């Protein structure tokens, strides 16, 4: 590749993340060399030993692109989100956690106190005889020590700062990252700020090649292991809840190809403010029973409805968290 343009400066950061998103950047395999030849990685905690104060020293707008993954769980996450916003020309909410709150966002079904109680006192693997609990500030002989404070709510990146783009997925499909990256490097015209990139506007069912008929009526729900999947028929028509109808296409329906129903990581299509509510309303419409008791019986087989419908999107949904 000829060096005509100055190299881009690229950063990848993880907040409340599992690490999967950072690994997905490596998943581009040998194409990583293309990235490195077009961009210098200036900050990437999983791979480089750059410190936070190095980032603080960078001039504003110094970084061309930051791929920010992970949700906002504590003060450190929020500070870094705001810092990287300032230092970056393009801030991308990368992956479901940054985009929607993601898996960590399911913690909004409980509270900080309940989480601490479970983790520091009740967990089967914990021995905590002195009943210690982390505190954000501790005065030691050497001086005051600080820990980030843990919030009651998990938030998505857009709830603490303004990302330019959202690249969905848990984690995003590596090919889509490459496409987006190439588009930025090539200087092509970028979509309007606030857009979801690297995904389609229609939902999974548009691409999914499983056979669909008009008969979507559900008499009984099954968990995937309870049926013998024929590998051909739409999961919903086999009574297995598939989030595909309420989830943006773009991953190449990769779970369905692997004979598992879609769990919804690519998030809602445009115009759907609350994918969980939308999917619940859809499912309610196709339950094939009129008698209230019969309906309850059918619904009993739907395992963990809240976690299923809101698996990736609770913090950005209309309900946002458990209230009572």
């Amino acid at each position, binding site marked *: 590749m000829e060096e005509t343009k100055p190299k881009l400066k690229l950063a990848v950061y993880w907040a409340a993340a599992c690490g999967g998103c950072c690994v997905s950047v490596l998943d581009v395999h040998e194409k990583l060399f293309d990235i490195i030849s077009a961009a210098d990685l200036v900050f990437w905690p999983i791979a480089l030993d750059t410190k936070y104060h190095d980032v603080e020293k960078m001039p504003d707008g110094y970084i061309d692109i930051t791929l920010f993954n992970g949700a906002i769980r504590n003060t450190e996450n929020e500070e870094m989100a705001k810092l990287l916003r300032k230092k970056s020309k393009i801030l991308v909410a990368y992956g479901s956690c940054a985009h929607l709150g993601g898996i960590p966002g399911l913690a909004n079904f409980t509270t900080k106190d309940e989480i601490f109680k479970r983790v520091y006192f009740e967990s089967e693997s914990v021995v905590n005889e002195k009943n210690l609990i982390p505190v954000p500030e501790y005065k030691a002989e050497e001086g005051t020590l600080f820990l980030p404070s843990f919030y009651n709510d998990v938030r998505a990146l857009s709830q603490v700062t303004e990302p330019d783009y959202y690249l969905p997925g848990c984690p995003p499909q590596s090919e889509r990252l490459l496409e987006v990256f190439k588009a930025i490097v090539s200087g092509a015209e970028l979509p309007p700020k606030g857009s979801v990139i690297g995904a389609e506007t*229609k939902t999974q069912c*548009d691409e999914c090649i499983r056979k669909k008929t008009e008969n979507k009526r559900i008499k009984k729900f099954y968990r995937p292991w309870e049926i013998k999947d024929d590998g051909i028929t739409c999961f919903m028509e086999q009574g297995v809840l598939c989030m595909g*109808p309420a989830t943006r*296409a773009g991953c190449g329906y990769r779970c369905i190809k692997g004979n598992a129903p879609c769990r919804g990581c690519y998030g809602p299509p445009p*115009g759907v403010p609350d994918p969980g509510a939308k999917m619940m309303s859809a499912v309610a*419409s196709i339950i094939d029973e009129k008698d209230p008791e019969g309906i309850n019986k059918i619904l009993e087989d739907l395992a963990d409805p809240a976690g299923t419908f809101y698996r990736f999107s609770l913090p950005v949904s209309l309900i946002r968290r458990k209230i009572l």
Partner: protein
Amino acid sequence: MENLRIGVYICMCGTNIAKIVDVEAVAKFASEVPEVVLAKSYKYMCSNPGQEMIIQDIKENNLNRIVVAACSPNMHERTFRSALRIAGLNQYLLEMANIREQCSWVHSDPVEATEKAKALVNAAISRVKLHEELESVSARMCPNVLVIGGGIAGMTAALELADAGNTVYLVEKENHLGGNLARVDLTAPYLYSARDLLTERITRINNNKNIKVFLSSKVTSLTGYIGNFRAVIQNLVSIQEGKTRDTEVEIGNVIVCTGYKEFDASRIVHYGYGKLPNVITSFEFEKMLRAGRIETKEGKTPKYVAIIHCVGSRSQEFHSYCSRVCCMTALKYAHEIKSAIPDCYVSDIYIDMHAFGKGHEDFYRSSSQAKTLFLMYEKGDRPVIHKAGPKDDCGMLIEVNEKLSGETIEIPADLVILMVGMEAREDAYEVARIVNISQDKEGWFIESHPKLEPVATTTDGVFIAGTCVAPKDIPDTVAQARAAAARILARIAKEKIEIDALYSEVNPNLCSGCRLCNLLCPYSAIEFLEDKKQSHIISALCKGCGVCVAACPSSAIKGRHFTDQQILAQVEGLLAEKL
């Protein structure tokens, strides 16, 4: 986007609203909401001066959104929409806040009621900002009509429509026209010959070039929507021969006149129908009358004839309804037997004598004078028929718990006529499914309103007439057939059909073809386009009920005038903190 200029009107409804809600305070509150140009209260907004005020204000202040806080939109939405139209504004740029039924009428605390009225007005203001101009669309009205069933109802409707110059496809599954009436001899109460009635109709139909009769045929599919249906008519004879001869026709409206079938008397084992040779049904007796010979199976002239009413009707076990024609038919039989065999003893065993129609009571009186023995039995009870002994001078004996005398009476009979009731045909379900109409628990087709819309159905363009709706006699059947034809003629005269603007539509840029919505529409308005692999709503069929809008998981379906954004804005307006 255009500049919003909102006018808000608070109605006092005389004192209906004003006695609880401080309308001045609500108007003052509204006038301070951004983009509200003016807010006024008035004694009766729906009165002419009230509407005139809106029209004037729209013209003078260039208002482009109107909120009227008054009674239920069910009451006066039309009134205010028409005011907008007169002022040259699209009628859908109006929103009503119901501060009467949902506020002043149900609250007694004026302070709280006023706060609630403000919230309702604020919700309406938030919503009206997102209202869009909507236009109703019109579709072609094809003047051809499909009539299913060639009984007296179907034939009458066909003639009415064809005489006005329209093409009618008349489909009859038997190999002749006439239906059940072709099995009847004289008709009650005036004793006109059924044959004469039918011959007149059939001859006129055969001579009418506008009527295409399909005998031994059935309709196998109906697609499209009012004004623009397509039907497939299948020839049943060719099917038996292993071929198919289908005819496809274009029509604008359909009348279903598939009639009834008689109750199967062998279901009541006590009467011995099918075992005792001289227990026959009314239809079998009609056959004797038509042949001009009343006789027993053995070929003898009966000395005693008994007629039993309500066979299969007015019973918890079979049909709870009254079949409406059998009482008068029974009297007709008494009359005909007496004139054919003057010394024959006729007994008439009934529950109540239902003689409600025109001329029926007179007919009842004249029959009673013809020396018929009337015996009344209790609803829920049943006369018992035995074979007579060798010493009796009759074939059978009937035991009746006579209600008026309170005694058990035994009467002789050589011939017993069972007045079998009417019931829905076995294939009524199939017909209902093909033309997309509903059936009640007894299988009769359901009208869209039992009092005000007796021949229309919930599917626009599909009408029902005659005994397929419920048991009835010939005059009522004919009246319904003519009513359905008149409804259609009025529509054909307009040439076009107006389709309400409040339908839902699928956005092809968002529909993924998941097919989740496909079977949900109560009006069958959703079709799946195989070539595009997407769903589509036929706007002429859609009633804007919103079922599919709520179901579509991709929000690809937009309910016009009820968009998510409009509803959410309304909710936000209602819950806004600073009021």
